[in-house]
């Protein structure tokens, strides 16, 4: 694997390899000394054209736990704000000896363009590009789901197992969500069934060509008995106007409210009797797409997702920079 740009590019074997490596990395994170020497002497550049403290810090922690040198580059206040192009910025970083570039960008495809260019020899990790993909978020979601799924089925370790048969419901603004796209492709690759629930205004016009079931009613979707409910953030800047009338109506129809939490509490992971789980990529709008009670419920895995983010990003950097496997 040369770059990580998209979960659509990941084979079943690739995905399992990353998740299994992440399990090993997770063990490191629970040690007293949370550090491996694997990437000593290597340089990871966090190239962030878009504000995202949690993702940047997660990648930074991951790189540091692998003993890499980390350079954080934020477009805001940099030469980029003076008009420097992506090409020139990357070539500058290349000259400084970057081994991996973790790029976050508001433009869909920026990571792919960087990887396809001759501007850098570094491995490129897509840390979120516009409304395209956010592959490490999907991988950490999959790691989170796999733990519950395998534990419920009494597997000794989640390693080596996929999500075959799991039913995952993704709710909300799929149209603008890079998290949703990455999750759909990865979950399908791992054998899960994926359904979407959203108003038609927040679904791609050609969603019928996607390998998913579409619901225009969250209550109908919950009635199908999903094993996991993944809520998406309602992006404040898109509230109101043409996508939906106003936040309160959105919450009534599409929010994981206290009333719907009662429904979710009746759901189980398959027929195991173990409770279904709730995910959210954060940051949350409590009281809009998810109620406080749902976010803080026993079924919520939201804080686990954050912790798993570091493990997954360690795994990705490790595999990319040490040639851990071919893809």
């Amino acid at each position, binding site marked *: 694997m040369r770059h990580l740009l998209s979960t659509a590019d990941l084979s079943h074997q690739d995905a399992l390899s990353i998740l299994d490596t992440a399990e090993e990395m997770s063990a490191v994170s629970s040690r007293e000394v949370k550090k491996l020497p694997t990437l000593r002497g290597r340089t990871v550049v966090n190239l962030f054209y878009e504000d995202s403290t949690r993702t940047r810090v997660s990648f930074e922690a991951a790189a540091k736990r692998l003993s890499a040198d980390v350079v954080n580059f934020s477009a805001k206040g940099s030469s980029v704000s003076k008009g420097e192009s992506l*090409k020139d910025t990357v070539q500058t970083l290349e000259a400084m000896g970057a081994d991996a570039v973790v790029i976050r*960008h508001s433009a869909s495809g920026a990571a792919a363009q960087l990887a396809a260019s001759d501007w850098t020899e570094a491995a490129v990790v897509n840390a979120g590009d516009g*409304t395209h993909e956010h592959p490490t978020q999907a991988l950490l979601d999959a790691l989170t789901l796999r733990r519950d799924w395998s534990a419920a089925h009494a597997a000794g370790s989640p390693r080596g197992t996929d999500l075959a048969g799991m039913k995952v419901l993704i709710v909300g603004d799929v149209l603008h969500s890079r998290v949703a796209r990455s999750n759909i492709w990865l979950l399908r690759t791992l054998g899960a069934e994926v359904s979407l629930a959203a108003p038609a205004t927040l679904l791609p016009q*050609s*969603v019928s060509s*996607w390998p998913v079931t579409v619901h225009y009613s969250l209550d109908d979707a919950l009635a199908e008995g999903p094993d996991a409910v993944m809520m998406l953030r309602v992006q404040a800047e898109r509230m109101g106007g043409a996508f939906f009338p106003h936040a309160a109506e959105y919450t009534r129809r599409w929010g994981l409210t206290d009333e719907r939490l009662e429904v979710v509490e009746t759901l189980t992971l398959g027929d195991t009797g173990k409770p279904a789980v709730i995910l959210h990529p954060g940051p949350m709008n409590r009281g809009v797409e998810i109620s406080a009670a749902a976010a803080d419920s026993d079924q919520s895995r939201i804080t686990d997702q954050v912790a798993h983010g570091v493990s997954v990003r360690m795994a990705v950097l490790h595999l990319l920079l040490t040639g851990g496997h071919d893809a």
Partner: protein
Amino acid sequence: MPDSYLIAGARPYGEEPTDLLIADGVIAAVGEQARSRAAQLEGITQVDAAGQIALPGMVDLHTHLREPGREDAETVETGTRAAAKGGFTAVHAMANSFPAADSAGVVEQVRRLGQEAGWAEVHPVGAVTVGLEGKQLAELGAMASSEAQVRMFSDDGHCVADAQLMRRALEYVKSFGGFIAQHAQDPSLTSWGTSSAAQMNEGEVSAILGLPGWPSVAEEAIIARDVLLADYVGSRVHICHVSTKGSVEIIRWAKERGVSVTAEVTPHHLMLTDELVRSYDPVYKVNPPLRTEADVQALREGLADGTLDVIGTDHAPHPTQAKECEWQQAAMGMTGLETALSGVQHAMVETGLIGWRRFAEITSERPAAIGGHADQGRPLDAGEPAHLILVDADARRTVNPEEHATKGRNSPFRGIELPGRVTATFLGGHPTMLHGELASSRTGRTA
């Protein structure tokens, strides 16, 4: 440079070989008479055109020459050199320059630059509205009565979206025989929130790539509206760069109804699909966007059956940095003058959809007639103005934008092998290109 040429053995419209004599700016004779009369002339140059196809010089209704204001992207000089190299003897310069061509002064400036360059006739297109802003009619009458004698008006790059303004524009230009060329794009259907605009065709590919979509209905709704308006007020409308199957169907319906509508299609929309955008290479970013295979097939059929009238290149050169960046920040547009013949040959002739006679109609005769240029797009007969080209249809070439005369390097056909090559272009009897190389302009400029 002598001004008499005996073109020996060329095949007019791809038919039987014959000789053509060019003298004093006209086709002086064709066939046996050409050779006998040539023998009587001194200083004549013989051009061996055995096996080559002779066609009327091509006429482009849709060229962006960028001057004034964006000379870093193109100038009238470089753009018309590209025209000559591509086999065009006349081009229409779109109005989205800086300042916009919305006044008599600017259109006369563009016309004068074209005359001074002398590589092709340059016919300025006037803006429909002041500053292309879609709010107030530009001085259409002044542009029409200027030395540029503008007849074609367009806000191309922008749609005249206001229906009342479009109606008034269609009515107003009737008084001097003008017409409106519409960039059909309902802006309210191609803007995504406050900060982003549509980036590519809306469909399966845009949904996966996470790029804001430009739905086909945004084009079709405006075309439907405008053909109804043109019918209602009894005026003439021309639809720029048609890109969807639905648009072809609406135009077909309008023509059957007797509406005075003409339409153009670009070579790139006849050849390329939105699948190419998966590369995120901004060279494929264009407005209207590349559509689907079904659209491409419908456009080809529409051009073959006459629903679509002409080829328009929408030649849109950009500086390298405008394309060497993130997709969403990249400029829209592709170069097209120097690959148009090859593209149409590939998409339409080699597929058997049209022959070279129809090729001459869609690239020369109809655009000249729509533009109102009586001496362009004429048949290759004795006594006609010598605007003609020679084409080696059997040649194949790998497109290398570095070899192009345009300043733009943003050709979507880079590295692609295409058929056909223009080997000579005669502008009023003067060879702007000869033996496959630019020669000199009518005003004596060399490349």
